[in-house]
């Protein structure tokens, strides 16, 4: 299985076959703080790369979650409606947001792998 690929907006995607599972990075959840609400897209909706696909809200603020790749939403993580704190606890596991059937798998080549993303985050100036 391939590892995670990351966008500059701190989303990750894990691809298995033609399905990509999408969530936000550990860095992103740490920056947000306690997640209290997640708004997920309808199954069947088509999203373009970098289009808003979901909303994540902390105590303080609401933030958009962008699709790191284009595709059709085939599943949304309903567990987040009852337990949004999963995003904090397991951001790259049980805290996933949605699954997409990829329509342009070539977009994956433009995303960062784990090492590149770690470099990117360490360059963001927060100590």
């Amino acid at each position, binding site marked *: 299985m391939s590892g995670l690929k990351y966008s500059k907006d701190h989303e990750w995607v894990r691809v298995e076959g033609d399905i990509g599972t999408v969530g936000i990075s550990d860095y992103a959840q740490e920056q947000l703080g*306690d997640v209290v609400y997640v708004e997920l897209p309808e199954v069947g909706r088509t999203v373009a790369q970098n289009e808003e696909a979901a909303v994540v*809200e902390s105590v*303080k603020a609401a933030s958009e979650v962008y699709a790191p790749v284009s595709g059709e939403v085939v599943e949304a993580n309903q567990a987040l409606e009852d337990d949004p704190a999963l995003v904090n606890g397991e951001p790259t596991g049980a805290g996933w947001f949605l699954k997409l059937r990829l329509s342009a798998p070539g977009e994956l080549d433009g995303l960062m792998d784990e090492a590149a993303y770690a470099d990117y985050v360490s360059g963001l100036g927060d*100590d």
Partner: protein
Amino acid sequence: MSDDAGTDALARTPLFVEHRALGATLVPFAGYAMPVRYPAGIMAEHTHTRSAAGLFDVSHMGQVRLTGDGAAQALERLVPGDIAGLAPWAMRYTQFTNDDGGILDDLIVTRSDDGLILVVNASCKDSDIAHLERRLDAGVDLTVLGERALVALQGPKAAAVLERHAPGCAGLGFMTAGWFKAGGVDALISRSGYTGEDGFEVSLPANETAAFWRRLIAEPEVEPVGLGARDSLRLEAGLCLYGHDIDETTSPVQAGLAWSIGKRRRQEGGFPGAPRIQHELAEGPRRRRVGILPDGRAPAREGTSVLDAKDNVIGEVTSGGFGPTAGGPVAMGYVAADAAEIGRPVSLLVRGKPRPATIVKLPFVPHNYHRG
């Protein structure tokens, strides 16, 4: 080591080093680098304050002393609160009003042994001081207490903790103050705060503040609390945040602050905007600040439109978020007076979708002030 993003050029309170040592996330606020949260996070800081004791740095707020004969009368020409009637060491919440009856800032006034102590919002303190200097009589002296810091200890265990370090302070009644030795240092301590909980604010010399802060942090009941939880605590308590729930376009009556205008002041007037405020007291305001409880889980943030059953806009959310103690989203805002009754169903337009909500009584979490 790099500094926190964007806070290098900001003013620092005497507790800046303590915040860094505690791992705070620092953000710009009213020109200061202030802790928005510590590693525990807003949710834990909030619930800790409601169950034990939270320690806040509020040194960015302005502290001003007015002295001289007639200081109270002079201040009454700028605020609608009853200042002349303040007993020694009593405190009062009031507002600087403008000639239109709008609010320039809200503040707490304490009658101390040598005059009046004003605590004003950080974001307004420069304009407040200019306003005071311009409008006070020549016989009233204004001193900006820039060499003093201010910390707040809030929560049901605050009195027991502070009594260990400032003996006698637990005897203070709600909204009274006095001088105490705090960690051996002369400190002006008041039984007040802005969380809805019992608690204290401690004003002490800036250069003694870090040592005092560390004494309190070392107590098992105490955790540091940042501006994030300060905001969620005051929102649940139904308390206004200047620049959001009140500003120059809102009057004290619209804001539900008529309780802070004494009977004598209502009758006599003599403060900026008195005709408008007296008219609203008599006839009712055209809009009112209310609590708004979203039915679902989605928070409604500041700026969210409030709709009636026919999707007409009848108001706007001025503060909204998640209430950790309430256990869900909470909001407050202004709605047309004829739509302001408790229990009325409304909708909130969040991300283009109307979502059901109800007008409710404030606060969302009962106040737990000291009644002794």
